[in-house]
Every structure is written in C-alpha cells, then in structure tokens.
C-alpha cells in the first residue's frame, strides 16, 4: 500500500466527522443564533446573563470546582500510596480501586440516594449510636457526593499513571543531592505529575460542570444546575434555541479545557488502559 492509498482508509472517518461531529455542531450554532421564526438574534447567548441562568451557571461552576478539588485531594495521596506499595499484587489492588466505576453510572447514584436519605443507611447507623443524623440529601452537598463518587476514577487513573512513570532513581538522585521529603515532593513528584493532574482536572471538571442527571436524582429537584436548565429547555420547555445558546456558552469552558490538555498532556496520560 502506498501512502496515498493508505490515507484513503481514513475516508469513512472523514465522512463521519463531517456528518456527525461537524454538522451537529453547526446545528447548535444555528439554533443558538436564530429565534423561533428563523431570524438572527444574539438574545439566546445573552440569556446566560439572566438571573436564573446566571445563578445556575455559578452554582454549576462552584460545585464543579469543589468536586474537582475534592477528587484531586482524595486521588493524589491515594495514587502515591498505591504507587509506593511494595506488594506482589499491586495491579490487583489498583484494580480494586477502579472496579466500582464499571457499575452502571445510574446505579452508583442510586446507592448514594439510599445511603443519604433521611431514614437511610447512614442515618440509621448514626442513630443506633445516638449520634444526630446527617440530612444532606436534596442539597448541593449530596450532589457533590454523587459527583465525587462518580468521577473519582477519572482523576485517580491519570494521576496514578503519571506517578508510575516517575523512576525510583530520580527520587534517589534528588535525595542524594540533599533534598528532604518536602523538597522531593515539591520539586520532583509534583512537577512530574502535573500532566496527570491536568488531565484529571479536565476529565472531572467538564462532566461535573455539565452534569444534570446527578443533580436531578440527588438534588430532589432543589438543585438547579446549568445542565438541568439545558435539559429542561430541550425536554420540557420546547425552547431549543435557548438551550442551544446555553450549550454554546458551555462550549467555551470545554474549549478552555481542551487547550489546557493540549498544553500539558502531551503524552496522553489521561488514558484508559485495558
């Protein structure tokens, strides 16, 4: 096969890109800039500044940031401990920490609902010992719980992967050159895992910013995220133009993430491994 013929093999994919990536994107752009009668308008983009939308966007950003930070704070030490473990079946242990994510996304949320509800598992347990109950179901806190639970592996895996690429002799060299534990962490381990962290942050932040199912199930209809507004615009309100406008605004955040990813993660650490 010569090169030109080989390139033709990408043909079906090119058709696919145009038909199912580019065209759908243009549809969103079209709807976002037209009103119900088909005339040009900027009003739906500007609608993101409306009180309801703005509040929902800020809440989404807030929860997204909290969720991302929590995932990072949990994953990083976990990845370090897992990586440092000197046991035979390390791969099995790592696998155990990844396993829950193969459960269906919805079932994982269901489980948290059972745990957190007023007479749920956690509260029954607490009251058994006479502790006061925890009532966070149907609050943003519950939504954050669900998000962290759902998205944790997306942080853990890239961070862990980047950590496994740190050679032990680099750490020894640093120590040899006079670095204590803190210096080793901040000068060697942290900089070498930046790409993993960035991948993880992007992979957790984008879905948590745009999620609607988790807030729907764990928020009891009381937590309105930007994803919920878009979903309602399409599935209940018959307001496709408004929904498209908001989606286009969301794309801005996605593009920022892509840029970050390209800047830092040149080796593709956010990778999935089979």
């Amino acid at each position, binding site marked *: 096969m010569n090169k030109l013929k080989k390139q033709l093999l990408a043909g079906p994919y090119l058709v696919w890109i145009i038909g199912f990536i580019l065209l759908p994107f243009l549809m969103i752009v079209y709807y976002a800039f037209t009103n119900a009668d088909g005339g040009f308008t900027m009003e739906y983009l500007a609608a993101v500044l409306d009180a309801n939308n703005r509040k929902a966007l800020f809440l989404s950003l807030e929860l997204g940031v909290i969720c991302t930070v929590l995932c990072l704070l949990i994953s990083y030490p976990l990845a370090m401990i897992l990586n440092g473990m000197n046991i035979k079946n390390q791969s099995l242990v790592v696998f155990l920490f990844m396993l829950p994510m193969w459960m269906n996304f919805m079932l994982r949320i269901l489980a948290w609902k059972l745990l957190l509800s007023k007479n749920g598992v956690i509260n029954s347990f607490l009251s058994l010992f006479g502790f006061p109950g925890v009532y966070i179901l149907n609050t943003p806190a519950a939504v954050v719980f669900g998000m962290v639970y759902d998205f944790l592996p997306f942080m853990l895996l890239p961070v862990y992967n980047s950590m496994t690429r740190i050679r032990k002799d680099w750490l020894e060299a640093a120590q*040899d050159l006079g670095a204590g534990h803190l210096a080793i962490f901040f000068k060697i381990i942290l900089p070498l895992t930046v790409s993993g962290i960035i991948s993880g942050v992007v992979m957790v932040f984008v879905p948590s910013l745009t999620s609607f199912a988790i807030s729907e199930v764990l928020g009891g209809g009381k937590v309105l995220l930007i994803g919920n507004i878009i979903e309602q615009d399409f599935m209940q309100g018959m307001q496709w133009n408004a929904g498209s406008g908001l989606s286009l605004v969301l794309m801005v955040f996605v593009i920022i993430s892509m840029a970050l990813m390209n800047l830092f993660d040149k080796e593709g650490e956010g990778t999935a491994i089979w």
Partner: protein
Amino acid sequence: MKNHLIDFIDISKSYDGNMVLDEFNLYVRENEFVTLLGPSGCGKTTTLRLLGGFETPDTGKILFDSEDITNMPPNERKLNTVFQKYSLFPHMTIAENIAFGLKIRKKSKSYINDKIKYALKLVNLEGFENRSTDSLSGGQQQRIAIARAIVNEPKVLLLDEPLGALDLKLRQNMQYELMRLKEELGITFLYVTHDQEEALTMSDTIVVMNQGYIQQIGTPEMIYNEPENAFVADFIGHSNIIDGIMIEDRLVEILGVRMPCVDEGFGTHTPVDVVIRPEDVELVKPEEGALSGEVVSLIFKGVHYELEVMANGYEWLVHTTEYVPVGSKVGIRVIPFNIQIMHKPESSDEKAVEIDE
C-alpha cells in the same frame, strides 16, 4: 599514611534471606580512587547504596570521617552519587538539573550560576545550560550527571557503573575524563564496575568482590600480576588456571610435569591452583619446552595472535606475536617468575581469602 575517610565495619546485608554482604570490612582513604570490581550480584552495588544511604545494613556500621552515618538519611550525607541510569530530572533543563542540590542548600543566585558554568566547563559541555535532558546523547547525559554531583563539592563521589551504557570509544574517552576530573577536584572516588579493564585503567586501589566477600584488595598491578585466587585470576583476564600439586617450596607439578617456581610456604604435596598468563607462555621448539603439544587454533588479534595449544591434555591459551600455523608441533616453556601459585578455595562457594593488612 593518609587517614581513613570511610570505614565499613562488619557490615552484613541480606534481601529476602539472600546474604548479599557478609561481615564486610573495608576502608577508603582520602583522595583515593577505589574501584569495587566483580560480577553482577557480588554485592558491589549494595556496598555503594549502603554508603549513599539508600539502604541500611542489617548489622555493622559505616563511619565517615570517624562519624557514624549508618542511619543518616541520604540527603544529609556529604557525598554524591552518579547513578547508573544518569537519573537526570526530565522536567528540568540542564542548568536546573545542575543547580538542584545548590538550590536545596539555598546558595545565592550568582554562586549557583558560577558553579553551573564551572561544572559545565569541567565536563566539556559549555553552553548547554538551557538544553533539555532528552536532547543529549548518553555520554553527554553522563557528564551532566557528574557535573550535577560535583557542584555540591562532596568529599566522596560515588559512581555506580556510570559508563555501562556507553559504547566502547565513548567509554574509553570518559575514562580519561574521569581520571582528569579526579586530578582537578582532588576528592575521593568510589567506583563500581564489572569491567576489569576500566578498573585497571583508572583505579588507585581495586577491591575484587564475589558473592558478598572481598576476594582481593590491591593496586591494579598487584591484582593483575598476583591474583590471590583462581576467581580473581579468571575475572581479571583470560588465564591458564591449572590444577597442580606443590611438591615442595619452589617446585610445583602440573599436568605431570615438575616445574620450578618462586613461591614458598605452601607446605609439601599440597593441591594448589597454578595461574599462567597467556602472554607469559613462551613457544619454543618441541624438544626445548617443558611440555610439547600441537597448535589447534589461531586467531589474529591485531597486536598479537591468540593460539590454543593442546599439550598434556590441557588446552593452553597463548599470546604470541609470531605466526604459528595450525597443526605445528610446539614446545611450551614458562620462566619460574611467571608461574603464580594460589591456594585452592576452601569450599565451592569461594570463601574469601584472609585479608591481612
């Protein structure tokens, strides 16, 4: 006599029940170039890692300048290591790599810059400050690793097979570089290698190790010319090592032939190992030699020919500058001074010889 800078005292170390070092004792003097030489698994790298602080011994202690440093963490020891795999930090430039130790010690910026310039000049890589580590060849990386270690002005530089990954030519060049550095810096080098030629070229003192025991300590000349046992002799060069019997002082019997030698004190009728270097074997006419035999192979080696001569049931390795065709009948003669008599090892696992100071 210069003072001891480093003392290993009765060090034992085992991994998973495998004894790597057993009652190991060694001292290193100031400003010495000491090489630990031995096959892989002999304990030489472990010795170096114990000194570097990356391992702690099971028993025994390590003194540095008479101070016990057995349990001191690596970052507090006044010595630096050049690692086998160079171990340059991939996320830093060359200059940042070199400055690493100095920044930890909070040196001033101008001091650090001067040091970087000085070190790069020392290793002949001026102007490489802002290059990234992966743009360098193996030899260059190696030299940066050395520069990174020496800017910290360690009293001892530990080198763990630093030239192992380089090709022959580069290795030879680097050997000279290292010797030059040693001269310029005037510090102690502790060098680990399994390459006997490297050890012979550079060292002041060679420590030959095998299976956790020291086999012989001495200058390169002593190690080469007077190996104390068959292991050392074999490891240091291709030798003819032949079972023999010490009939009496200055007379040894090998392959059924009695030959005069210069060694004394082995007792009478004692089994010994007899070492004769290939270049010490003289080929003469069949009737003039102590033994006679036939040339069975001949290889041209550039400066000499390498021959195998079958004589009295033993295949002798012989180096000679004369061309002797295969099939020729030759005689073998060795002058007494070149016959090296050694004790048989006491057990099969090559117990260490007594190290008498």
